């Protein structure tokens, strides 16, 4: 397997709880996000993605205290997404020890934000998040606000817009596959990778090393997963893990 892909656990929090969603709803309590970060750090994962959900994340400011505690556990890169709507927030996050931020909903409402952030902080720190579902005609529909609001713009038109902004990365979330452990959306991975100059990360449905290999063949360089790294076994008991075969030492050298 190619060593320089990035395999990253996603931890989602609501308030101060680590949760796991199913198709972006039914958040199930899993545990303590700080502890999860500490374990992932010990397991030497490539990167950690921290995602905030919860209805109040747009009205209150970000939970800097929790993010800071999580950043303190990470000697690998940390990415944060959820409720970002200003340059001030991004600056503060970067100062806390977050490497990269994911901006999603704000892109649809604050047109200038992402370009401004890229200009000030550099493209490498700014990721565009795309949450999407497939409709019954197999058309990709874009969503914002943790999957609560459907956006009108067509998927491919949005991809074109994003290329003009020039972010450091695209983070794709296949909402339908979230929490399902039913395999990733390879078709979308291919389509987006081909049309993007910047690296692409795919999240949703990843079950293990075979799915990672398939995604790499589609051209993505980042593979994100949540259920895979939070649960174990047939009964999906909570066990924070990072399978042996995915660890860096067990991949082929570059």
């Amino acid at each position, binding site marked *: 397997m190619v*060593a*320089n*892909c*990035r395999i990253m656990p996603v931890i989602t929090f609501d308030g101060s709880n680590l949760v796991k969603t199913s198709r972006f709803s039914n958040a199930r309590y899993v545990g303590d996000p700080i502890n999860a970060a500490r374990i992932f750090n010990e397991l*030497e994962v*490539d990167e950690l993605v921290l995602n905030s959900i919860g209805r109040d994340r747009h009205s209150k400011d970000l939970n800097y205290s929790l993010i*800071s505690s999580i*950043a*303190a556990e*990470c*000697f*690998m*890169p940390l990415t944060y997404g959820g409720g970002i709507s200003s340059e001030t927030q991004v600056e503060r996050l*970067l*100062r*806390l*020890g977050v*490497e*990269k931020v994911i901006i999603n909903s704000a892109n649809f409402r604050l047109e200038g934000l992402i370009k401004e952030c890229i*200009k*000030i*902080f*550099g*493209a*490498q*720190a700014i990721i565009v998040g795309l949450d999407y579902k497939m409709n019954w005609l197999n058309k990709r529909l874009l969503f914002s606000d943790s999957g609560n609001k459907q956006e009108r713009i067509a998927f491919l038109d949005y991809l074109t817009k994003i290329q003009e902004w020039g972010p*450091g*990365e695209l983070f794709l979330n296949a909402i339908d596959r979230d929490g399902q452990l039913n395999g990733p959306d390879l078709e979308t991975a291919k389509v987006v990778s081909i049309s*993007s*100059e*910047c*690296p*692409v990360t795919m999240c949703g449905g990843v079950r293990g090393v075979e799915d990672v290999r398939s995604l790499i063949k589609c051209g993505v*360089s*980042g593979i994100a997963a949540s259920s895979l790294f939070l649960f174990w076994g047939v009964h999906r008991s909570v066990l924070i893990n990072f399978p042996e075969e995915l660890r*860096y030492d067990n991949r082929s*050298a*570059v």
Partner: protein
Amino acid sequence: MIDYGAGNIGSVLRAFKLLGMECLPTSDPTDFCRFTHLVLPGVGSFDYCMARLVSSGLVDALKDCVLVQRVPLLGICVGAQMLGKSSQEGVGEGLGFIEMECVRFPGTSGNKVPHVGWTKLRRLGSIDNCFLTDKILHGRAYFTHSYYMLPMLEENILFTSKHGFTFCSAVYRDNIVGVQYHPEKSQRTGLEFLRIFATEYGR
């Protein structure tokens, strides 16, 4: 740790703390030469970082400490790029401590821009120095950058790495070292690098 408002200082401070070393942020130029080592972080665009460094009034003190007093200096990411003369990313002038400029990755098929991810650090030819330990050469470092360093002189290349082609991933000259990757985010390889910088380099 030079705090001029454009770097991820929290993570670097934590890394040195984990190593049991005292690392303090400072934005007071009169303070610089008190320290045994200096670290120049940098996150953002070249022009943005240089502008902030210049407007913070720290450049003269930095030049004095590093070029005259010979305090060892570590530049990280854009902090390393700033050690050079210029960057294609912007129009500003760098510090000029090392003869180099920064250029953009071409972004040819298969090699996305920015270069994001973990890559090995390779020795150039048969050079030798305190950083070239087994732990580092068998490890990996985390990169996230669209521009890479292009030193004029081969003798200033400390490490090379690959992203489609071989590029310079670290530079050095006398008491100055600049790394494109983030040692504070490169787990054990990064921590080992920081340890060597703080305990062996520049002596």
